[in-house]
């Protein structure tokens, strides 16, 4: 019997997929369409008004061009926010990529027993199933003004007085992101590495390649799909984040996600929608850039 036999008896496939498709239509596709639509609407102090206007986009970047081109060029708040977000995003990306790749490499090539591999992999995964906010809060006793790190710095004499920039700062935000999301790099890269035929490494060794040459000419090219998938995860999560930046930045650092969150809180829906559309576009550009580096479909 072939797969066709299954289709002839029992529930048709489209009916089985229908509930899932319905959820995504109702809570993903329609909301995205509405977001684009409302970003073109007008609004006043009382309500949002159906319209087709570029007002929200225009006002989001109002004065930006003038200030950039003036005698003393400077960035407007919106552009600054986007650049801060992008800067944090790229920093986190580089760190999680380097760290995630190294951890995955260790697990895939240096751990020899499958059981140990699974156990170590689970150890990396378990925190992912616990609360993100708690994992952020748990940095307070370490990084705070009187935290463990500062106590250590002062006692060892490395710092005369407690360092202030450890918590509620860019540094804290980046530490928390790395803490929370390195796993998103480890899993896909580890998955790609496990598919690499070990005979290729032996061949490289027999052909006289050094460890670094094997790494850069064999392992990295073959692990590329995992690297790209992990990067897409990390970049999109960090670009849209407002919780980590809010909690770890002591609500003092601006990010695009926080800006949208604040505008929603003030019931300014059309401007929030416009920023959401710009954010989505930026993320898509980033992903497009990444997929240019590697043709995912070809690599799979």
């Amino acid at each position: 019997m072939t797969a066709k036999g299954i289709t002839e008896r029992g529930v048709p496939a489209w009916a089985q997929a229908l509930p899932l498709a319905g959820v995504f239509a109702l809570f993903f596709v329609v909301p995205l369409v509405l977001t684009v639509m409302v970003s073109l609407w007008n609004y006043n102090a009382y309500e949002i008004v159906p319209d087709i206007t570029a007002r929200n986009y225009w006002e989001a970047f109002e004065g930006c061009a003038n200030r950039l081109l003036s005698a003393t060029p400077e960035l407007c708040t919106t552009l600054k926010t986007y650049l801060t977000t992008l800067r944090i995003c790229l920093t986190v990306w580089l760190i999680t990529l380097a760290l995630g790749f190294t951890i995955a490499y260790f697990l895939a090539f240096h751990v020899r027993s499958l059981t140990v591999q699974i156990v170590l992999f689970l150890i990396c995964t378990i925190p992912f199933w616990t609360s993100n906010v708690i994992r952020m809060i748990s940095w307070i006793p370490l990084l705070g003004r009187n935290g463990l790190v500062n106590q250590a710095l002062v006692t060892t004499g490395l710092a005369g007085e407690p360092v202030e920039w450890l918590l509620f700062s860019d540094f804290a935000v980046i530490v928390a992101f790395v803490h929370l999301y390195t796993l998103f790099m480890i899993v896909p890269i580890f998955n790609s590495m496990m598919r690499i035929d070990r005979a290729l490494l032996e061949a490289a060794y027999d052909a006289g390649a050094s460890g670094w040459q094997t790494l850069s000419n064999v392992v990295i090219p073959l692990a590329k799909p995992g690297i790209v998938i992990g990067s897409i995860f990390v970049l999109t999560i960090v670009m849209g984040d407002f919780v980590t930046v809010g909690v770890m930045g002591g609500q003092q650092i601006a990010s695009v996600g926080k800006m949208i969150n604040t505008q929603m809180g003030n019931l300014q829906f059309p401007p929030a929608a416009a920023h959401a559309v710009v954010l989505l576009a930026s993320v898509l550009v980033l992903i497009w850039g990444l997929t240019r580096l590697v043709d995912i479909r070809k690599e799979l």
Partner: protein
Amino acid sequence: MREGRPAAFYALAALFALFVLFLYGPMITIVLLSFQGPEGGLTFPLHGVSTHWFRKLWNDGLPNVDIWSAFARSAWLGLVVMVLTVVLSLLAGLAYRKRFAGSDALFYVVVASLIVPSIVVSLGIGLEFRLVDDAVKKHAPAFLSDGYDTAMGLFSSALGAHLTWTLPFGLLIMFAIFNRFDPRYEEAARDLGATPWQTLWHVVLPIIGPSVVGVGLFGFTLSWDEIARTSQAIGYHNTLPLELQGQTTTVTTPVIYALGTLTTAVSFAVIAVALTAMLTLRRRQARLGSAAGKGLL
């Protein structure tokens, strides 16, 4: 492979150990600090050992927040999300083993849902429900619009928001499960005259059961600590992580650590139950499955 451990192994192992410390260290810290005596503070050194802050959490909750209602809301929502994630992913996973119209498009939508920033999805759902609310208030007949406030809520907008996050994980895991599934088991069942339902219930589900438990684990834990997608789509009553997020800068006693320890304990309990269930199901398979075919060989 070559004999002996290369020097790189020790360097990488040390890095891995540091990474694990980095992952678990902070969590251990707040567990320790939550068991302090009554005069304990937010940082070290520890002031005595007691369950004072847990009792305080139990009796008084957090200032200004009804934490236990939020706790219950999150738990219920997590359970509903878990059940729906398992059922819908399983059904869709079965569907994807055959061909159906729009299967490619649906797959891209599901993957897109994983990639589109959560704040955008959340905002979209929030807008959708507000537009519906406005329409109902303006145009619906009186028996509907009288006393109508909003359709937003825990089991409407928030549930939908959570599913857009848990279902992609569920479906991708289902793909992995069915990639490894041997269809000959189904064929054998069919040849013996089993109906599709009997095949699913007596053959397919017992085989993939342990992995389906994994889908449930993702469903509950992802929902239990979801913030970003819930934020604009929750209505009046917040879930636990949303309340916690608001309390991070205002609560200045270890009671927040006690709550942190408690929610982490819930997560660990769920993980432990899931892993135990997986192992039990595997053992059951080994016990019941091993006899089959032995007599023939």
